[in-house]
């Protein structure tokens, strides 16, 4: 039997006291107090709980803790320390792409996942990239413009 479940969280090795079947979402929020990861639907529909696992976008509500042993998990708190985040943050601000803000941590990580795979996406690729992230305020257009702008201004970063 192992003593806890270890993984890399925002660049640091951590050991969780959670059970292997616990949702990563709950562990991030309740054990590590990383409340930037939002809990929306708990069924993979809304994307508010999006994180990066080994560089790939994942809904943390759909991830059992036991499936990420030794994986690298990046939440919005970790990502916010990067240059790429700053470019996205500025672009989101420029277009007022944030209203209530609940979807934004997930939306920003979906933006990162998209741009890291496809640094110069066209509009339909952007819409596809954020298609798992629901936003009830903005109507998406401002977010799409923000991502387009970030991909131009952040040329070379992705």
């Amino acid at each position: 039997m192992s003593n806890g479940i270890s993984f890399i969280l925002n660049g640091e090795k951590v050991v969780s006291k959670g059970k292997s079947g616990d949702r990563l979402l709950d562990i991030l929020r309740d054990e590590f107090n990383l409340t930037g990861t939002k809990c929306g639907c708990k069924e993979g529909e809304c994307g508010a709980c999006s994180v990066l696992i080994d560089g790939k976008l994942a809904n943390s509500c759909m991830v059992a803790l036991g499936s990420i042993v030794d994986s690298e998990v990046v939440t919005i708190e970790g990502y916010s320390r990067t240059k790429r985040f700053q470019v996205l943050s500025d672009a989101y601000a420029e277009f007022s792409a944030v209203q209530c803000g609940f979807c934004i941590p997930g939306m920003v990580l979906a933006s990162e996942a998209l741009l890291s795979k496809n640094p110069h996406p066209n509009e339909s690729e952007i819409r596809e990239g954020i298609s798992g992230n629901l936003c009830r305020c903005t109507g998406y257009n401002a977010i799409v413009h923000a991502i387009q702008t970030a991909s131009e201004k952040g040329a070379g970063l992705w």
Partner: protein
Amino acid sequence: MVILDNGYIPSTLDEALQIRSENKVIPYAGGTDLMIKAENVPYLFLNKLAELQQISVDGDMIRIGAGCTYTSLLDSPITPKVLKEAIRLIAAPAIRNLGTVGGNICNASPKADSALIFYVSDSKLRLCSAKGERILPIEDFYVGRGKTVLQPDELLIEILMPKKYLDNYYYQKVGARQALAISRVAFVGLFGMEDGKITCCSTAYGSVSDTILRFRNLEAILLGKTIAEAKELKDSFLAEYDKAIVPIRGRVSADYRKRVCMNLLEDYLTQNGI
């Protein structure tokens, strides 16, 4: 192998099969169906097992590891176009990064969009246990909604997909929205001819009944026929399908499902010159 509080992480397939034979465990592939319930049950974590994540061409067959995620299949040049088209309409990127074709098959939903493609293409499933293996057609794998013949000591290892006839396909998924859409009806048809005669007119229907539907006895009506002969038979062929497809009511009515199935079947025939 790593043993967790209530779960196992095997390092090899052999270890996984050994654990499966000695313990009551739930195989965890992508987790996207299991975690909706998030029960504290003993999981056998297969999501990092490289042996289940291979895709390769083997003669006239494509071998797809049960642990291949949708994203990895979209990224692979080997994945047939028809399968990619179905996968592109499954959920959204984050779910496709986790969800696997093996999980989609074993979850045994009649709405399983990737399983539909394996149905129409005569794919077979390779099931392994510590004692040995068996290969069976995907149609024989299902017993009913959510029920399969997978034994408690078995794992689905790979899908064996015949390449023949995959190129000329007709696929339509009818959902209520563009992303994260659950199929209301999904239809796929393959069509092939040799020496002026029809050699393949396979169609499969998802989200219609308790399992995916396919009617080999009705396909036989058109097999061996010329296009001209098939045109003569078209009305009676459609009438037979109209009798055979008995949809159940779900989020949409049975009548609606029936109408959509028949419209799509008719369009599939028309597109193929019948």
